[in-house]
């Protein structure tokens, strides 16, 4: 009897899971998920802030000298700080980062909106973040998102009124048109989870580690010339048609907090066809 009730629970939840997956393509499902995501974002952010000291120790184990120096600097900084100025300082830092982003992108960006990362994707194999800007700020799917130093960090994939989800360039479903700055060789830059891979670069193309990779305007899905990464490794295998190239992103995608959304860019915009002369206009 006890086992039967457990089995009933298992079957019900399994069915619920499958049903939810079946219903997930509905627009309403995505909207509900985005709203709940925004509701839990502050809690997740607060826990991340609490965990940050632990994180720094775990992730930077082996860098004790650097940590000690950083710790000493932080202690000095802390001693100077007064508690009631902390929130004001945070605001100032965010403003400076946003201003630096705008300055670094410069005239090529057109209209831009600064945004803060409020949520990171907890699922293994997914590289996406949620930003605190949405449709009412002019954000649309397909718009590029820039990090520090005018480097591309991702592309907007989902938008609601006040929030937007950005797929980072390292996500396995990310693929963008790219070009090598030195040789002007075009390729397809795809995410591999942690890094990037530049596909479809012919064997005879000149590529070397350190070459800068930029976005390409091919396809009209991205503005040209945005910094993306640097070539990390190049391998050529005799039996293959293309080189095997890995690219390290220039932006630190694990730690990105402030970003710039290029709201002035219209993805897929093409030139208007020339107006055909009206019949009889020549007469």
């Amino acid at each position, binding site marked *: 009897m*006890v086992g039967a*009730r*457990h089995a009933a*629970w*298992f079957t*019900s*939840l*399994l069915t*619920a*899971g*499958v*049903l*939810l*997956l*079946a*219903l*997930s393509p509905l627009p309403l*499902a995505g909207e*509900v*998920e*985005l*709203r*709940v*995501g925004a*509701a*839990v*974002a502050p*809690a*997740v952010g607060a*826990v*991340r802030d609490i*965990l*940050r000291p*632990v*994180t720094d120790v*775990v*992730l930077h184990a082996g860098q004790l000298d650097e940590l000690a120096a950083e710790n000493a600097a932080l202690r000095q900084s802390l001693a100077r700080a007064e508690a009631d100025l902390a929130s004001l300082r945070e605001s100032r830092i965010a403003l400076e980062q946003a201003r630096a982003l705008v300055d670094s992108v410069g005239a090529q960006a057109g209209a831009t909106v600064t945004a803060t990362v409020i*949520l*990171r*994707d*907890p*699922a*293994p*194999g*997914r590289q*996406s973040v*949620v930003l605190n800007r949405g449709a009412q700020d002019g954000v649309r799917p397909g718009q590029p998102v820039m990090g520090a130093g005018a480097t591309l960090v991702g592309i907007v*994939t989902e938008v609601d009124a006040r929030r937007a*989800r950005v*797929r980072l360039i390292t996500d*396995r*479903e990310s693929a963008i048109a790219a070009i090598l700055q030195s040789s002007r060789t075009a390729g397809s830059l795809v995410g591999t*989870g942690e890094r990037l891979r530049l596909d479809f670069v012919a064997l005879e193309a000149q590529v070397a580690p350190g070459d800068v990779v930029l976005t390409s305007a091919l396809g009209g899905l991205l503005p040209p010339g945005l910094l993306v990464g640097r070539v990390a490794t190049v391998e050529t295998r005799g039996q293959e048609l293309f080189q095997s190239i890995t690219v390290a992103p220039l932006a630190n995608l*694990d730690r990105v907090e402030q970003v710039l959304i290029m709201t002035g860019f219209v993805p897929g915009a093409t030139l208007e066809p020339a107006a055909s002369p009206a019949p009889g206009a020549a007469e």
Partner: protein
Amino acid sequence: MSLVILALVLLAAPVQAAIATALVRDPLAAPVLPAALLAAWAATRYSEERPCHEVWPAILLPALVLGAASEERVGWFLLALLPAPALAVAGARQVRPRVTGFGRRVSLAAGAASLAAMAYAVVLAVAAGLARDLPASAPSLLATGLGSSLLATVAVVAFWPLRPRARGLFG
């Protein structure tokens, strides 16, 4: 009392989202806190009179929270968390109330949490299209299992005062 585990697992969801994105470089290696809590709860609280049915609905809200925080769908998180109560109950059925000692309960909880965490990681990796990379991710899977079993051990210690005990005449 069953509301306690529901609340705890719900509170664990944002912590899990933060752990997976801040504490580890590879989210596959992140310990799975809801699985550890459920395994520890069942190993501590299970008895034939109270067979811990509450561990099943406890996964609904964390699945919603984690799914909402992720590009992955809520349904996948529900399926990924589903082995947690199943393994927790299966482990806890080895427990004989008032007979089974602390050490055996810890090992049952740790084992169930470890397997549930690995199942969670595998389901989400498959959902993300990483099935072919799983053999290469074996160290990360072991890390998630180990981390979750450690969390389950700590949780058993925390839940220990809540275990069913023999009542005296006036107890």
